[in-house]
């Protein structure tokens, strides 16, 4: 089949770029509670909140400055009945590292993130606010090298004792050896 030049260029374009998918439009009344929660914490944190968005029902993403995460969690404990933390993830964003706290309040998963510089990867612990986060902070420390200031015993959780110091396998610059 002989394709015209334009059609060839179009099909090639389609193959190269990943399809742009618009997030499914959520009706506003379905995310009323989530939206009001984001507004509330925006008012409380003010400038400390860098970004707050509702991705879909029961999923809120908040981005705060690294020192403000404790304030945010205390607010959620006092006002939203927060007591459960699902886990803590570490992310390697290239220039910086990021810590994401996956919290669960009012059956809504609130994902609170804070970005920290790579060469100074320290952030305050939340084990005094949420005792269940003890093992999760140890895991992130072990695999990413992020230090949680004030943690009662920041030991290795998963890597073996003879693992070399200063080597953090989940950072992007560490490649699995062949």
């Amino acid at each position, binding site marked *: 089949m002989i394709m015209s030049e334009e059609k060839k260029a179009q099909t090639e374009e389609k193959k190269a770029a990943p399809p742009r998918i618009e997030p499914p439009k959520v009706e506003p009344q379905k995310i009323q509670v989530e939206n009001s929660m984001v507004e509330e914490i925006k008012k409380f944190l003010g400038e400390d909140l860098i970004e707050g968005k509702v991705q879909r029902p029961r999923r809120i993403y908040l981005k705060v400055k690294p020192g403000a995460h404790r304030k945010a969690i205390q607010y959620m404990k006092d006002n939203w009945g927060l007591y459960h933390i*699902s886990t803590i993830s570490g992310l390697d964003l290239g220039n910086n590292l990021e810590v994401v706290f996956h919290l669960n309040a009012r059956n809504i998963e609130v994902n609170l993130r804070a970005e920290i510089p790579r060469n100074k990867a320290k952030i305050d612990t939340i084990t005094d606010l949420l005792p269940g986060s003890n093992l999760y902070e140890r895991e992130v420390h072990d695999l990413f090298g992020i230090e949680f200031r004030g943690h009662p015993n920041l030991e290795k959780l998963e890597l073996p004792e003879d693992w070399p110091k200063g080597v953090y396998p989940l950072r992007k610059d560490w490649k699995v050896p062949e």
Partner: protein
Amino acid sequence: MEGARKLVSTFKVPIGPQHPALKEPSNFTLEVEGEYVVNVTARVGYNHRGIEKACENRTYLQDIYLIERICGICSHAHTTTFCQAVEECGGIQAPPRGIYLRTLVAELNRIHSHLLWLGVAGHEVGWDTLLMYVWRDREVVMEALEMLTGNRVNYAINTIGGVRRDITPEQMRKLTKWLKILEERTKHYRNLCLGEKTLLSRAIGIGILKPNVARSLCAVGPTLRASGIKWDVRRDDPYAAYDEIPFEVVTSDMCDVAGRVIVRVDETLQSINICKWILEHLPSGDIRTKLTRKIPPNEVVSRAEAPRGELIHFVRSNGTDKPDRVKVRAPTLGNILAVCEMLKGGYIADIPIVLAAIDPCFSCTDRMLFVDRTTDKNWVWSSEDLKRYSVRFYANEPFPRRR
């Protein structure tokens, strides 16, 4: 941990913690005073396989097979959560029939896991007859799963966009018949567990976890529900077909091992009802949607209720066909802090059943280091040594006075 280190001068560890002859390894250090456990330190991570890093170097479809093998018993829950996360990242909607079949296999997986656990619980208290009978009846579920998926353990039925195999009317008829048999047998085990003194004396009042402690230590699953807290991801954050299926969340106010037994047996009965409902209301249509290889940049938190508790996956895509980050938190990790708390103040002889009661996914804790504060002795026991000790302890004193 500091105190334990000071007391331990020399100790002989004959083999392990990692050795080809051992089953799944882990390590507990228990500080004891005579017969009572005073402090527990758990070391997990001997089974760390670097799956999260491995996922970053493989495509999404290849990752499904990696994720499935995180756990042999809740394998389906892991793939369900992962596939849901990737589907949400890519804006792919699985068809209703696919979602219902996914839920059906998930509930059969839950029945299988709970029946397996009941047998293991019987084995831990030295009641091997229960293990043999329950595992015989568990074969019904294993056959059902093999009929539906082709495998007994790692089902490989989930894929991104739906499921891979459909169910025929003949299979549905067989499954309905088998579910009736299972229901009858599970009701029999329920009456047995509620009435049998040998099991109850080993389970009531043991491994107490008060609700406020369970909440603060962020316990999950039947461990949490046995402390009276009504918290189930299927009800609170519905995924797959659970927002359309009627079922009850089972809780118990007993806060001990007996409560966890009851919660799991009743959950099995609930799961059987859910399976029956799904078979009656199965929608027709496709079982999977075609998907693009490249998933656009997005990040999704996906949760599911594995047989052991809340399972959470955090997937971040970057526009290529490989994920940027896959974070998995298996439910047992959420219960480790709680189990350390439960063991304190109990007898050494209670350790096997209390550990088994959280249904740990690191299987047998094969090596335990005991440090006696009062006599300054320390010794290492295997799980077999500990089980023999606990059976002898309770044979000599069936209803010991508790502290």
